[in-house]
C-alpha cells in the first residue's frame, strides 16, 4: 500500500494505491485518524489505484467516517472503479462515492467566520452573550489549617455556571468531611477527585431533577454567559500553548480585569497537585511540614497526561501591587511584554476525544466528555518555577477557550 497526500483548499486528498485489506487496514486507519487529530476534518480519498478493498478495509473506512461525522467533518471517495466501486456500492456505502473532481471544494459548514486580527494559530469568535459573569467564593480552608465549618457552603452546580474548588458530596459537611478533594464543575456536571492516593475521580451529572451539589471548603464559581471563544492550534512556529499564553490572549481579547474561563484541549503536559487525605481530617494545632505533607498532597512530579484531553476551569485577574495570595489566586508566569496575572485553575483529565473545528459550543463539548469514559484525574494546576529543575507550567497543543469578564464579585479576587 502507498499513501500520497495533496491539499485542495480546506480539503486534504489522500491517494491510496495497492490493496486495502486486513494486512493494511490498521495502518491505514491509524494514519488517517492521525491526520484528523491534527485538524484535517475534510478528507478526500482518491482510490483510482486501489486494486482491492476487503471488509477489514471497509471497517477502517467506517472508523474514520464515524470520527469525522462526530466532529462535523466531511469524507468522500473519488475515482472509484471496478471492484472497489462495486464493493462500496453493494455494501450500502455508495453515499461516500463522489463524482465531483478533486478541486471541486465542498462548501464549508455554515457558521460565522472567526474575527480577523488574532495572531496566527488563534481564532476568535465573539459569542452572542449579554452581561458578564458573577463570582461566588468560598474560603473556609487554607493549607494546612483546620477547616472552618462556619465559612463552608453547599453549592449546587446548576447548568448556568462553572467553577472549581475543594469539596465533597454528602448530607452534611460533617458527612463529607473525609471526602473533600479537588473538583471542577461545568454546565451542571462535576468531576471530583476523592482524597485518596488510589481513588479514581468520580462524576456527578445533572439528570432530570437531580442537580449535583458539594459541600465546599474552597470554591470559585462563576455564573452567567461566556462571551468569547478562542480556538488555538499548535504549529511549527508555536509547538504548544502554555496556559499563561492563553490567559494573556483571553485578557487581551476581553479587555477585562478579571475573567472566568473554561479551556478544553489536548494536553502537552500538566503540572499539578491534588489532595490524598481530606482536609476535613486536619485538627487545630496540627503542623504539616515536609515530609508529612506527602501524606496529604500528591504532586504530579512530571509533565503528566500528554495527549489526553483536559477540561480546565479557572478564574484569573490582572494583578496590581497587592499580593494575590490573599485572594486565593497564584501569580502566573508572565509572557514577555504582558502585565502580571494571577489565577486559580483546576483540570479534569479525560481520555482524548477530537473536537470539531471552528465555532463550537462549550456545553456540547463538555457534555460529550463528561458522559464518556470517566476522568483519569482532577488536579490543581501549579507553575513549577523551581530554578533549574522546575517542570514549568501546564501547556496544551490545541483546543478551545470559552471565557468572559467577571462583572460582579470581582472584588473577591
Amino acid at each position, binding site marked *: 500500500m502507498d499513501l500520497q497526500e495533496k491539499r485542495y483548499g480546506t480539503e486534504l486528498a489522500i491517494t491510496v494505491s495497492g490493496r486495502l485489506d486486513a494486512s493494511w487496514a490498521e495502518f491505514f486507519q491509524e494514519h488517517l485518524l492521525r491526520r484528523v487529530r491534527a485538524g484535517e476534518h475534510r478528507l478526500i480519498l482518491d482510490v483510482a489505484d486501489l486494486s482491492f478493498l476487503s471488509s477489514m478495509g471497509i471497517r477502517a473506512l467506517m472508523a474514520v467516517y464515524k470520527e469525522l461525522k462526530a466532529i462535523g467533518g466531511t469524507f468522500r471517495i473519488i475515482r472509484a472503479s471496478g471492484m472497489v466501486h462495486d464493493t462500496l456500492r453493494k455494501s450500502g456505502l455508495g453515499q461516500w462515492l463522489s463524482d465531483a473532481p478533486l478541486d471541486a471544494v465542498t462548501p464549508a459548514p455554515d457558521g460565522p467566520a472567526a474575527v480577523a486580527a488574532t495572531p496566527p494559530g488563534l481564532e476568535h469568535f465573539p459569542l452572542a452573550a449579554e452581561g458578564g459573569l458573577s463570582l461566588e467564593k468560598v474560603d473556609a480552608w*487554607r*493549607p494546612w489549617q483546620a477547616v472552618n465549618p462556619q465559612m463552608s457552603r453547599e453549592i449546587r452546580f446548576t447548568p448556568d455556571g462553572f467553577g472549581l474548588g475543594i469539596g465533597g458530596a454528602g448530607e452534611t459537611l460533617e458527612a463529607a468531611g473525609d471526602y473533600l478533594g479537588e473538583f471542577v464543575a461545568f454546565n451542571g456536571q462535576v468531576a471530583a477527585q476523592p482524597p485518596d492516593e488510589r481513588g479514581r475521580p468520580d462524576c456527578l451529572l445533572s439528570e432530570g431533577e437531580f442537580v449535583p451539589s458539594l459541600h465546599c471548603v474552597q470554591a470559585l464559581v462563576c455564573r452567567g454567559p461566556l462571551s468569547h471563544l478562542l480556538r488555538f492550534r499548535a504549529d511549527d512556529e508555536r509547538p504548544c500553548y502554555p496556559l499563561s499564553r492563553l490567559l494573556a490572549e483571553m485578557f487581551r481579547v476581553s479587555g477585562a480585569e478579571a475573567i472566568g474561563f473554561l479551556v478544553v484541549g489536548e494536553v502537552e503536559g500538566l503540572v499539578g497537585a491534588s489532595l490524598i487525605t481530606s482536609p476535613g481530617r486536619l485538627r487545630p494545632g496540627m503542623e504539616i511540614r515536609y515530609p508529612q505533607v*506527602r501524606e496529604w498532597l*500528591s*504532586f504530579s*512530579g512530571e509533565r503528566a497526561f500528554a495527549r489526553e484531553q483536559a477540561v480546565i476551569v479557572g478564574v484569573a485577574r490582572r494583578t496590581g501591587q497587592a499580593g494575590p495570595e490573599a485572594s486565593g489566586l*497564584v501569580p502566573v508566569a508572565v509572557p514577555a511584554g504582558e502585565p502580571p496575572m494571577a489565577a486559580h485553575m483546576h483540570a479534569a483529565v479525560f481520555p482524548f476525544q477530537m473536537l470539531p473545528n471552528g465555532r463550537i459550543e462549550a456545553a456540547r463539548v463538555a457534555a460529550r466528555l463528561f458522559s464518556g469514559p470517566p476522568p483519569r484525574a482532577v488536579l490543581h494546576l*501549579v*507553575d513549577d518555577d523551581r530554578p533549574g529543575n522546575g517542570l514549568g507550567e501546564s501547556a496544551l497543543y490545541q483546543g478551545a477557550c470559552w471565557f468572559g469578564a467577571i462583572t460582579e464579585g470581582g472584588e473577591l479576587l
Partner: protein
Amino acid sequence: MLEIKNIHKTFFPGTVNEVKALQGVDFTLEDGVFTAIIGTNGSGKSTVLNAVAGTFEPDAGTILLDGRDITHWPEFRRAAFIGRVFQNPFAGTAAEMSIAENIVMAMRRGKRRGLGPALGRRTLDEIADRVRELKMGLEDRLHNPIGTLSGGQRQALTLLMATWLRPKVLLLDEHTAALDPKSAAKVAELTSEIIAREKLAALMVTHSMQQAVTMPDRILMMHRGRVVEDYRDEMKRRVRIPDLIEAFNRVTKRELFTEPAAAMLERQYL
C-alpha cells in the same frame, strides 16, 4: 506456610557500594496460594527469593516454614522443601546427562541415595508418564542429553523437576523471561497448571504485567526493598495492567515530591 517477618539485608555495608536490598519485608505465603512479586529493577524481588532459598542470611528478621524457624538453615538443608526455577533455562539441569538422569536426581532430592542403579524399568515408566503431561513429545527422548533440547523444553523439564517432590514452596525467578514468546507462553501455562494441580505455595518474580495479572492469586509489588502494594482476593481479581502501572506511578510520584517541590507547592498550592 511460609512466614517472612521483617527481614532486612544490606549488601556491602559501609562501602560506597552499599545496597539496602531489603528494608523490612513482611508477608505470609499460605499453602496453595500462587503469588507474583513485581517491582522495578533493584526493588528487591529476587533478593526476597534468595532469602527464602537461603542464598544468604538476612541481617535481621525471621523466616518460618510451617512454623519452623529456617532463618539460619543453610541452602542445601532448605532444598529438601523448596523447589526453584531460574531465569536461565540452562541453570536448573545438567546438560550432559539425559532427561531421565536429570529427573531421577530430582526424584531423590533430599533423600538417601545408595549405590544401586537409579533408573529401573518402573522408574522410567513413571518418568515417561509425567513427562508426557508436558505435551512436548519429550517422553520418547528420555535418553537424549538434556543439552540437546531448546530453552523452552529445558525450562519445562526444570519446572517438572522442581515440583516432582511437591515442595512446600516453589520459587520462580523470572523463569520465562529468557524464552521466546511462544515457549514463554507454554511454560507459563504449565506453571499455572502444575501449581493449581499440586496446590503449591509459589512465589514468582516477573517483569511481565500480563503474567502478574493473569497467572497468580496474589500480587506483591516491591519498591526499594519494601512491599508497597499487596493485591489479594477481590482486589487481585479486580486489578488490571493499567492499575499496576498506576501503582508504579504512585511510587515514583512520591519520590519526585522532594523538599524543593514541597517548598514550591507551599507557594502554589492554595
